[in-house]
């Protein structure tokens, strides 16, 4: 079982870095069979890495105004919203499937974000969201490991 964690955002723009901070926190744990990437934005070269993963988790700042950390199941999407800057997790999954023949089961963890000021630290709300997101990833990985161990 190979798990891929991708945190993305701009680490110079306040809460936009929330996904990356969460990814960096997870990377520091050096978990077995877990690859962690912290990237500025989702770009096409991530597709082959995705195609090799059994499961993937995207970590991103949430600008929707939602106050809680959300976990969403992500499906491959080919409906036009693909570009260098605006590639979504769903579009990347679709690209992985189209080019490399497969895409992993994937989830998006959205972390509430409110302040995007240049050079600003994470807001308390985003910081709390990062802690929750890391905890959620832990539980997801533990559940996946248990499910894997239970397989005949």
């Amino acid at each position, binding site marked *: 079982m190979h798990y891929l964690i991708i945190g993305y955002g701009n680490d*110079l723009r306040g809460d936009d870095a929330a996904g990356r901070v969460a990814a960096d926190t997870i990377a520091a744990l050096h978990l077995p069979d877990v690859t962690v990437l912290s990237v500025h934005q989702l770009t096409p070269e991530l597709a082959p890495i995705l195609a090799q993963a059994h499961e993937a988790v995207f970590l991103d700042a949430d600008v929707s105004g939602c106050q809680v950390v959300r976990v969403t199941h992500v499906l491959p999407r080919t409906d036009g919203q693909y570009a260098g800057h605006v590639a979504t997790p769903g579009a990347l999954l679709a690209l992985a499937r189209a*080019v490399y023949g497969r895409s992993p089961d994937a989830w998006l963890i959205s972390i509430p974000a409110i302040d995007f000021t240049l050079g600003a630290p994470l807001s308390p709300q985003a910081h709390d969201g990062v802690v929750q997101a890391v905890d959620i990833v832990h539980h997801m990985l533990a559940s996946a490991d248990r499910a894997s161990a239970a397989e005949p």
Partner: protein
Amino acid sequence: MTRHILIDPVTRIEGHAKISIHLDDDGNVAEARFHVTEFRGFERFCEGRPFWEMPGITARICGICPVSHLLASAKAGDAILSVVIPPAAEKLRRLMNLGQIVQSHALSFFHLSAPDLLLGFDSDPATRNVFGLMAADPTLARAGIRLRQLGQDIIALLGGSKIHPAWAVPGGVRSAPTAAQRAGIIERLPEARATVLDALRRFKALLDTHADEVATFGNFPSLFLGLVGPNGEWEHYDGRLRVVDSGGAIIADQVDPSRYRDIIAEAIEPWSYLKMPYYRPRGYPGGMYRVGPLARLNICTRIGTLLADAELGEMRQRAGGIATSSFYYHYARLIEILAALERISLILDDPDLDSPRLRAEAGVNRFEGVGVSEAPRGTLFHHYTVDAHGLIQRVNLIIATGHNNLAMNRTIAQIARHFVHGDRIGEGALNRVEAGIRAYDPCLSCSTHAAGTMPLTLTLVAADGTVLDEVRRG
């Protein structure tokens, strides 16, 4: 009554922008504006930081072209140190910039523009994307993705990370690839060359069937600006500034990039955060010029590599000399990928790369430094002023998209006049306006958040603010 048609945001470009098309009383296009509504603020943000940190900081301006900022910033640092960097360091920086040109141009052509060009401007927008291209021509789509990977892998090989590689530093670079790593890249070059030659063949066939687009996608006289070598040859990393007009006359040449203000001034308009540079001697807005792949190929005497020079000759033959249509940006981009691949091959075989001397050591010897290089989208200027401790006092950045701002506005107006009539925009016309902008491959401030989908909204607004019509896509 004046009416406006608003396209907000433009899809498949870097960053956020909107387009407004202003109609006159008769429903004809009077004016078009490309609004850049994001404020980046990096110039102010960097004040007070040590100039040594600037390559790593400014590389984060963009996730697509971090290398361009990295190199221009390191060069500004070289100027503050007053050093000539070691030969190996310069060649390795050049190698990284060539990798950047390959990956960025490949993204622009194969991922963003090829769906328009190969599937058709009037095809279903739901499938007019890289997935539609994959379904229609999987071999080409996969080859384009592999080509971009090669550029990214060269950057990763040097910088250790595909994006934001804080590898180039004032005075040189931090590390060099091993011979084995270089051999791994050399092995992949033949496939990459075959990919771009195939794309060139396909694109040249398109020129014959897209006469309307060639004639209307930014086809007007302008100046062209960029770096050239000492003999006027194609340059992407160093060199001096040259300005050429649409008739091919060289009107400024071998201008020291540190004296860019002698020939470039910047205007500001209240409806956009993007500055509007112009050629100072001709004033604003008459001093409109274009930069980027088309400009580089228009201003150079030759590229200096076999295959690329042959393609450049054919492009000039097709264009009748200087190519004045921005539709040719796509053509120039492909030729530059070919040139970059040829140059990469030469650099990777260079014995200088085995030198352990990669960095010149010095302190602050000047309080001002200008670093200029050719980003994929055009000439990039980093201009820093520092104090005796090397702390940044002032920063001025002129990015490629800014240079092209005036030309992009004129391009939109030209396309709109040809394809937009009355108070409605058809899907094909709408996409042509966007595609006209995409020909420049603009990279706006992509430093802020872009979550979820980016729908296209087209709003028709009367002079009194009444929304007459609104269309959403995506």
